[in-house]
């Protein structure tokens, strides 16, 4: 059963969890709904891990599963079908190692333009703070798959930031 201990653990990483929900959903209202549903479902669950790391993984997996259910119910499951078939939704020629100065709004625009699998893996590692092994456990894939997805996801993010569709606002003073 969900107890005070779980409540305290969840409170410690709720920012990461909400950030994960924001990364998965394209709008804030959906992210709020997803986050709230996940929290309430967790608090009503009969079987809850009683070890902090396992609880954290369980909480993120619960959130992810709710999101997948939502996508399937809305018939927006193309990205997942492609993922199952091994198709990389953002698979284009890698660009060179050009330096990119980013800012928050530009990154948000570019991030939302990524495929759902790429947003998912980046959100788990960068926002959720999970290790590659934990992410592999969450996604039920080998660690090597997580490594390659992270690499492709960041390459795709770099392309989105540099292809002119996303306007990189000046980060520092005096920069046009």
């Amino acid at each position: 059963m969900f107890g005070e201990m779980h409540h305290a653990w969840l409170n410690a990483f709720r920012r990461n969890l909400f950030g994960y929900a924001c990364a998965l959903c394209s709008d804030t209202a959906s992210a709020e709904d997803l986050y709230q549903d996940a929290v309430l479902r967790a608090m009503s669950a009969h079987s809850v891990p009683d070890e902090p790391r396992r609880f954290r993984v369980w909480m993120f997996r619960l959130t992810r599963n709710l999101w997948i259910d939502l996508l399937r119910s809305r018939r927006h499951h193309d990205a997942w079908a492609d993922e199952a078939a091994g198709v990389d939704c953002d698979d284009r020629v890698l660009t060179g190692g050009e330096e990119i100065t980013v800012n928050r709004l530009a990154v948000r625009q570019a991030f939302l333009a990524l495929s759902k699998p790429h947003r998912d893996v980046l959100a788990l590692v960068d926002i959720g703070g999970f290790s590659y092994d934990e992410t592999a456990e969450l996604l039920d894939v080998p660690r090597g798959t997580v490594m390659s997805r992270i690499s492709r996801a960041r390459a795709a993010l770099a392309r989105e930031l540099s292809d002119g569709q996303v306007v990189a606002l000046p980060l520092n003073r005096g920069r046009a």
Partner: protein
Amino acid sequence: MSRAGGTGVRPDDEAMLNAYVDGELGADEAAALALRAAGEPALAARIAALHQMKAGVVMLQGEAPPLPPMAKLPPMPAPGSAPRRHRRGLMAAGALALVSAVAAAVAVLTLVLLERPASHQPDDLAVQPAAAPVVAFGTAASVIDPALVSHDAWVAAYRPGAASLDAPSWLEAPMQAAGLRLVHLEPGRAGALHHGFTGSNDCRLSLFETAITTTGPAEERALRLSLEPSLLRAEWRVQGRAYEMLARDMSRTRFIAIATALHDVSRERRVAGERLLAGLEASRLPCTA
């Protein structure tokens, strides 16, 4: 294996670079990569870009709504037994009030993000909407940067030949390997401890260390690099401390090598390994001052 892009980085190397940035490489592998980056400016730039990419995604976290209290909640209906809208109708009135409060908070957060000046800001998405002093520097209006002010003031006042000071043990070895010595140590602005380092070629590098005293759990922040022609900046948070490193006239490769090394050793305040130190020595390049 085909080569990708102008860096000569192969696709399998690309995965390794990302693992390095995510702290997923073993100590020996990480040190070997740092050593290689010290001698390959394009590789160092690629690593810096990945650090920025990671830091950019980390910044997407927003202020999370508070958790509902540990009160007795109505049982969740069985999956598929009620429409999503009806399930929300079954929740306590407090949940609806929570959503309203969250919507209001998000509206404020969005407004602040849209109106935030296009200048460097501390990487803190627990947004502080209180107005900061705005000073025009002859170009776009910008916000006073306490660390940059302290760095520039120290550089302006510094005279060559200043006596070396005792650096903290975790800093001593990597900075010595980087060819820098501590010549300035005093409380800076905003509660930070200002370490000022200088090298034989008139390099000036500042490291600001601040204890994080927020009430919530101290959060780690990934290494974030800003490499403009006239200002090099690195920021990160680990182990309840915030670090900011600044230099104006240092080669990017050297700055990246030092930032990456300090980020690594600051995680556990451990003594830097031999390979890490070798990488720093290899990255010594004359400053451009």
